[in-house]
């Protein structure tokens, strides 16, 4: 019963901070609100039983990517004398409208799945694997067995990204 209360609490935090990320004019403020969202999500992950992902979320997302963002913001000195970069009210209305419609559709689509999945009776599949290999092993084993190709590709992708970033951002001397 406690976990549900915590879940709704963190969900609320996540939604508010997401809204603040989008609406703050100051990039630094919105960056920090985004970090807040990540923390809330990490908490929800742990509540859902994915402890390793919760940790990774904080480590990689909040820790690495957001730091990179803040670093770039500071590098480009965007923190101050920024003018409002919101588009016209027409666009605002359209954006909000399309977001709500999208939300409604997603809810409609997603809504029906629980009854479907419960029917398949796979509730405690994850628990069995975790019990066998431990929290990290449960993710590690399939990653290195079934998903070994995507893993390598992702590795390559990251290499390309790094080289790309260096080439792009380097001052043409």
């Amino acid at each position: 019963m406690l976990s549900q209360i915590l879940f709704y609490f963190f969900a609320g935090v996540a939604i508010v901070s997401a809204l603040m990320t989008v609406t703050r004019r100051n990039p630094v403020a919105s960056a920090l609100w985004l970090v807040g969202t990540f923390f809330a999500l990490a908490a929800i992950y742990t509540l859902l039983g994915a402890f390793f992902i919760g940790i990774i979320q904080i480590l990689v997302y909040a820790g690495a990517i957001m730091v990179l963002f803040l670093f770039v913001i500071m590098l480009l000195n965007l923190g101050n004398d920024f003018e409002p970069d919101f588009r016209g009210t027409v666009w605002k209305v359209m954006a909000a409208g399309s977001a709500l419609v999208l939300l409604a559709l997603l809810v409609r689509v997603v809504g029906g799945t629980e009854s479907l999945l419960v029917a398949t009776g796979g509730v405690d599949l994850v628990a069995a694997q975790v019990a066998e290999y431990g929290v990290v092993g449960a993710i590690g084993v399939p990653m290195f067995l079934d998903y070994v190709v995507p893993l390598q590709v992702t590795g390559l992708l990251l290499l390309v990204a790094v080289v790309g970033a260096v080439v792009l951002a380097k001052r043409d001397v």
Partner: protein
Amino acid sequence: MLPLNAALFLSAILFAIGTAGVVVRRNAIILFMCIELMLNAANLAFVALSPYAGIDGQVIVFFVIAVAAAEAAVGLAIIIAVFRHAESVDIRNFSLLRW
């Protein structure tokens, strides 16, 4: 266990907020943040469904994170390159690629 629908609804909401942000904001950096937000919404959905559909969900999350990281890195590099040239990160300066 936690109500599955709630988690999925949450991810839908976050995703919707992310799209709204992408459409509305002109600042490239914030644009990237909104995209990160949308990716996270997707991750949440994966994690929420993994107890029912198997651990694969959580494995995919890792790949998503990796992609997100790569995308952020390259994106920001582009923004720096453009910034050097146009002194601002407003995406209207990026509008040469059109008919």
